[in-house]
């Protein structure tokens, strides 16, 4: 069995973002780039599954659509334990474009399970995984919080409003993964970092497509009024303000 983990390269989640060029572009100065948190958890889960020989997983590949600047992030995924990597050499302008490129490379060389994080922490679209599955015309299961293989059958926990469903899916499929899939992201050990240097990172060129969407301008959230502090000896005042002023209780 072969697993593909799609990864996105995003600013560290504590970054205070700023924009340049008339608020049309992210100011990348000083930003530390990381594997998108949900993708990192997906990779961790894939590696956990591979650790159990009963699951018979031969290969875990990571795929990324992005320019050469993302290679340190891809190498990090290899250091954590992925066997090899693919990079489609293009600026990931929008989800539709990214999903189309991924579909294109997967059609050439199919995988049994494709894992995508539920969203990237930059554009928060939650769209690449579903789009990819539709391009490939294969099933998708979204909001996946657990994935196990039992006797060759894949068992998935899917979060629904106020609960969970246990779902099976026929391979190949795309699992769109959220919190819970793995406890903590796996960390690269020194041996992994050394080995990552010699693992294969294949670069392919993109196919062209018309853009569907385009970001015209970024805005910062409106600053809001300063916090009104209430005397800790008089918590009752807070309840009165919420009732009479904010009118929320």
């Amino acid at each position: 069995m072969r697993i593909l983990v799609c990864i996105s390269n995003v600013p560290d989640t504590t970054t205070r973002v700023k924009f340049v060029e008339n608020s049309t572009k992210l100011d990348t100065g000083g930003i530390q780039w990381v594997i998108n948190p949900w993708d990192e958890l997906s990779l961790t889960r894939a590696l956990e599954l591979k650790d159990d020989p009963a699951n018979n997983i031969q290969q875990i590949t990571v795929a990324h659509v992005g320019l050469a600047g993302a290679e340190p992030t891809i190498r990090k995924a290899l250091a954590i334990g992925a066997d090899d990597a693919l990079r489609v050499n293009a600026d990931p302008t929008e989800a539709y474009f990214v999903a189309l490129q991924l579909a294109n490379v997967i059609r050439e060389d199919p995988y049994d399970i494709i894992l995508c994080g539920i969203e990237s922490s930059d554009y928060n679209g939650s769209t690449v995984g579903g789009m990819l599955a539709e391009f490939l015309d294969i099933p998708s299961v979204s909001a996946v919080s657990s994935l196990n293989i039992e006797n060759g059958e894949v068992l998935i926990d899917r979060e629904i409003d106020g609960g969970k469903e246990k779902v099976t899916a026929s391979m190949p499929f795309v699992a769109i993964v959220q919190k819970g899939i793995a406890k903590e992201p796996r960390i690269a050990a020194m041996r992994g970092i050394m080995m990552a240097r010699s693992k294969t990172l294949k670069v392919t060129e993109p196919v062209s497509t018309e853009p569907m969407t385009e970001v015209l301008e970024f805005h910062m959230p409106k600053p809001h009024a300063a916090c009104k502090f209430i005397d800790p000896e008089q918590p009752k005042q807070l309840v009165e303000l919420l009732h009479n002023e904010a009118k929320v209780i």
Partner: protein
Amino acid sequence: MSVLVFTENWDGKFKKLSFELVSYATKLAEMLNTSAVVLSIGPVADEELRKLGNYGAAKILNATGDGLNSLDNQSWVNIIFQVAEKVDATVLVLSNNNTGKALAPRLSVRMKAGIGAGVNGLPKSTVPFVVSKKVYSGNAFADLLIRSEKKILTLSQNSFELVEKPGTPEIENYPVSLDPGTLKTRVKEVHKQTGKILLTDAEIVVSGGRGMKSPDNWGPLIELADLLGAATACSRPVSDEGWRPHEEHTGQTGKIIAPNLYIAIGISGATQHLAGVSSSKCIVAINSDKDAPVFEAARYGIVGDAAKILPQLVEAVKEIKGK
């Protein structure tokens, strides 16, 4: 031409989320000089369907047939796609909840429609079609131009006011013949919490962080939540420690919520936590550290010990509620 809006149902019932979607689609249809058509999938009584008419739906299609009781993304996408063609939908609106996130991206490819994911308001303009959406986990917003002829929007929950516009919509049954044997995903078991207010539906949320000091101290927090009709939530360290269940974790990697009132107790307010709650209409912070970043996001704050303040809040709420 029309605006098509899809709402799921929960065991045959709609909820506020459905009415928000219909209100939104109706307003959007007005901007485009057309009307809003609602699609519901699965068994729902006519009386329940008619409730959608209170928010401006011009027409309601109810897809029924075997195998529609649980979500199979591919077969549901087929139904929505066929209905979108039938009603000549120029914009398709879904919720940005789990179901919407599962279906909208597939439909984007099928309909060749650009997607505005997680919008929280009407388009800034319709020609060109520009919507505002949250990016960088709420640390910024983007004006997104959708170039394609057809568009898909997913609406963030609790971000659009209900607008009543009573009418008597035409209800049309849309029979679907689906061979359950061909489904590629199958639901084997369903586990649902009952009797609890869902965090994503709640208008008031009371949330606890490490400043609560121990899982044994949650009693007054839960009592406060019960009195307010609120859901309970927690910060990531609290769920990681196992003090509270993972389902309660709010923040960037947990649940992203937008209640009318969010009360953060003993939560310092790391960027990742605030990313999950920054769309709340009113944030209250109670924390012993006056420099905690949570106060920057809060409208009201108390600097003090949660263990002392919580019981007093409970009493004050009881008084106001006349209990």
